[in-house]
């Protein structure tokens, strides 16, 4: 399998009042063509920053890519010129953001906002771009697309707006679509529709998808592979089926246990939902030379406080970074 997008040893640093903090710490993962990969973890663990790093949109200052590489089909994007990056953004890699309510520009019509991407990257005329924009609105299942194209964002519901965002992102048939919590701000019923849509349109345009989420439920529904992140570090990676049934990192296990319907049976023995105690450490603690999850971990050992966990390759496809790996036989709901 040759990777379409390959992130290697990526470190992104932020300058804060307390010093320099690595918001992404030595992160590596590959994305195969047409694959759906999920980055999962709680808020503030560097998922969105990873997406922005791939797009070359790290806010600078205070942010800076300190080291590593991001290659798209063999081309290192971190060394690409700004002009080249602009040709990549929205064209080869595009992105759907979390907040559909605020991610569309309120003063332009929906058609203008889809069409402008097409004009920019595909060199279409205004008329061609409009025709294709209508097609895109149709593809994201917006009724009466020829009329909706003249609507302004405030005339659309949240779900509709996210469909428009997806239409913008997929208009140029990108190789990679990054969806950053695309359904978090939406109603549950709409979430399912958006996921269905992303799956369908993604398949049709053959885009590989990076789905960023904090919800293991979404992962189970959408993704083939998953990268679990904590405090800027990758702590576990593998196929979704393997991770869900045999999570090896205590944090992954905690994330899964938070979502009741993922477990095969909701039995009387598990009367309450589990939660992971504590919260993601503040930025100033990022880069700490031990395990950052240690303060919240129920399996913590002395070694966890002293050294950064080594990555253990469990199977060819699954790896985890932990000093005290969960026994593979232990079921999540035990």
């Amino acid at each position, binding site marked *: 399998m040759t990777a379409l997008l390959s992130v290697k040893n990526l470190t992104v640093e932020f300058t804060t009042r307390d010093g320099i903090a690595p918001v992404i710490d030595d992160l590596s993962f590959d994305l195969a063509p047409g694959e759906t990969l999920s980055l999962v973890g709680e808020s503030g663990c560097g998922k969105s920053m990873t997406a922005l790093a791939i797009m070359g949109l790290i806010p600078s200052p205070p942010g800076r890519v300190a080291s590593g590489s991001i290659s798209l089909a063999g081309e290192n994007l971190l060394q690409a010129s700004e002009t080249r990056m602009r040709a990549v953004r929205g064209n080869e890699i595009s992105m759907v953001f979390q907040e559909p309510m605020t991610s569309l520009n309120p003063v332009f019509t929906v058609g203008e906002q889809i069409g402008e991407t097409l004009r920019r990257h595909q060199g279409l005329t205004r008329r061609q771009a409009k025709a294709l924009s209508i097609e895109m609105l149709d593809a994201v299942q917006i009724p009466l697309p020829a009329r909706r194209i003249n609507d302004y964002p405030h005339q659309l519901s949240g779900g509709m707006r996210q469909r428009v965002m997806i239409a913008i992102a997929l208009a140029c048939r990108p190789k990679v679509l990054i969806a950053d919590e695309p359904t978090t701000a939406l109603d549950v019923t709409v979430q399912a529709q958006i996921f269905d849509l992303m799956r369908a349109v993604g398949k049709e345009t053959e885009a590989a998808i990076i789905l960023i989420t904090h919800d293991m439920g979404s992962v189970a529904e959408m993704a083939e592979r998953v990268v679990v992140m904590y405090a800027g570090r990758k702590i576990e990676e593998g196929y979704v089926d393997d991770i869900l049934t045999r999570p090896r990192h205590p944090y992954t296990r905690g994330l899964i246990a938070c979502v009741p319907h993922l477990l095969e049976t909701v039995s009387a023995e598990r009367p309450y939902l589990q939660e992971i105690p504590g919260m993601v450490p*503040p930025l100033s603690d990022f880069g*700490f*030379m*031990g395990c950052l999850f*240690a*303060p919240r971990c129920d399996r913590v050992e002395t070694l966890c*406080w*002293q050294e950064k966990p080594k990555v253990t390759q469990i199977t060819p496809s699954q790896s985890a970074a932990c000093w005290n790996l969960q026994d593979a036989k232990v079921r999540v709901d035990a």
Partner: protein
Amino acid sequence: MTDYSIQERSLQPTSARVEHPLIETARMFAGNRAALSGLAMLFIIVVVSLAGPWFYPTDPFEMVWSPFSPPGAKGFLLGTDYLGRDLLAQIIHGGRATLAVGCAAALLSVFIGITFGALSGFYRGWIEETLMRITEFFQVLPTLLFSMVLVALFGASLGMITFAIGIVSWTGVARITRAEFLKIRELEYVTAARSSGASNTNLIFRVILPNSLPPIIVQAALLIGFAILFEAGLSFLGLSDANVMSWGAIMGNNRPYILLHGFTIMYPGLAIFLTVLSISLIGDGLNDALNPKLRNR
């Protein structure tokens, strides 16, 4: 970093560091160099204006030397005006009236503004409609012209001038107060107070108003500066109380001679400029200190 520090720090509840909002505001303000220098400057100006006449008792209305003596001549530090009156004495003595009119007019407009803004923001409906129409009316009225008319028709006394300034300057306060009231009246703690039987008066004065004060305070501070500028403008046009010396009046008196004797206008103008500047610096500092959203800018 020691091994266990992360554990202690991460598990510490963050609420332990919260301080009283007033202390936090004061700390923010004290950390703002521009605002502090504004405060220092204003302090000096106020002290000189209030106590100066005792230390520099020269009568600002008395002709002491030949007209338009340049600064420094014959011991008159800033020279003399078109009647040969000591300019420094005029500036020192004129500060009182300028500051007094500025503060009184600002107070009047803050009072009107809060009343209009609070009532229209709280009661909505026809009250809001009526009060907002009146506010709009005062917005389209060319303020300086209207004040000129008032002072010209009803006499240029300090009281009338103060009234003429205060009556045209309150619309900003009213708009801000109304916006705050509209925002705060929907918040949960207001609903909570309402459902526990608080009267409307109680809600307005004890619940909503205290919480909407920060932007009003900032606006009030800026209004003092505005009123001082306004008073100077009126005096410059000759609409000042002839029996009272003020910075604007000095400039108005010497207006015909600007080309030959610019200093007679430069110095009083500088006094106004520094006063308003220091007030603006303080206002900005208050704004930053009182507005938590801007703190991280």
